[in-house]
């Protein structure tokens, strides 16, 4: 049985696609056959983040409309074995996706032997975002330590709890996981940024991981390489930890504190 994971947030620009790419890649690296689906019809970007934008021939909407088979539309990732990408369409027709159509595609993928289906949600709470989360078993709620993002995350949690298939059918609720991204321990220490405890207090869902603010994320997206593959960086390592936790392993949270600094740096308040 395939497990469906939605990566969602409500607010745009918090790192949903970066996270979808990282988590999908991480799951495949762990030996699980995984596909990442871009639900952002009209504004596809997962292909760019995964570095496969020039290999897109058919897309999600083509499959839903029966214009192409799943096999034709799926792109096999060149870096990671067992990883596939299903790109979104660039059509301007917002109603191109239907609930029945999405359900068919998900069924087809499960029959194809996929263990994990990662749904990269568009921003907002409109139809596209609702479709992305409707069939989910687990939800990764990507949140920045910032007021607008936290409020929108709470809103999307409300929708998960009332508008998902699991909610409508009265099944076990969608598993909720908080992923705090763009975290800056220095600003938290100086009282300029909400801490992981603050956000956790307000949203009150289990913490999947904290991804520190890192130049590696932009560098990775520039190159079209999921940041989780950059094992040297804190962001890459933090994503690896998050994937391990998603798979049920215990990993201590890292990068929440400032790195130790020398006496003079500390005296002058120079960031490490």
């Amino acid at each position, binding site marked *: 049985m395939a497990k469906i994971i939605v990566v969602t947030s409500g607010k745009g620009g918090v790192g949903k696609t970066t996270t979808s790419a990282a988590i999908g890649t991480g799951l495949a690296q762990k030996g699980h056959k995984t596909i990442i689906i871009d639900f952002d019809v009209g504004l596809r970007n997962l292909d760019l983040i995964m570095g496969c934008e020039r290999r897109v021939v058919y897309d999600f909407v083509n499959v839903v409309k029966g214009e192409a088979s799943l096999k034709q539309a799926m792109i096999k990732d060149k870096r990671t074995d067992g990883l596939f990408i299903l790109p979104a369409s660039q059509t301007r027709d917002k109603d191109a996706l239907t609930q029945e159509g999405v359900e068919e595609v998900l069924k087809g993928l499960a029959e194809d032997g996929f263990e994990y289906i990662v749904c990269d949600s568009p921003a907002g709470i409109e139809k596209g975002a609702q479709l992305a989360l409707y069939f989910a078993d687990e939800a990764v709620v990507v949140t920045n330590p*910032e*007021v607008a993002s*936290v*409020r929108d995350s*709470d*809103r999307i949690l*409300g929708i998960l709890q009332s508008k998902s298939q699991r909610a409508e059918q009265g099944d076990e609720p969608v598993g909720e996981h908080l992923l705090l991204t763009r975290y800056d321990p220095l600003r*938290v220490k*100086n*009282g*300029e*940024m*909400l*801490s992981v405890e*603050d956000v956790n*207090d*307000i949203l009150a869902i289990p913490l999947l991981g904290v991804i520190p603010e890192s130049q590696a994320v932009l560098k990775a997206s520039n190159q079209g390489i999921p940041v989780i593959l950059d094992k040297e960086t804190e962001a890459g390592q933090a994503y690896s930890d998050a994937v391990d936790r998603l798979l049920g392993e215990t990993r201590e949270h890292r990068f929440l504190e400032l790195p130790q600094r020398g006496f003079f740096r*500390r*005296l*002058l*308040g120079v960031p490490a």
Partner: protein
Amino acid sequence: MSILDFFRAKDSENSASVARERLQIIVAHERGRNQQPDYIAKMQEEILEVIKKYIDIDQDQVTVQLDDTDDCSVLELNVVLPDEKAVETG
């Protein structure tokens, strides 16, 4: 706390705690509202239309609240009526 921190302006101090307090309030408020059924907002509008036929009031002077307890639901309708004089002269 470094020596430089000590001389920095105090007004930027701990904006995070302001953010936390504002969020706690708004999130609690919105959770209460979002847990109501979808028809409440529509019903509030229609009730307002009916009241407007008789009394001159604003949108924010009517609140509709559905409270669910274990074995009963209470629909609370709160209308703030303008004072007599205002009605007569207005």
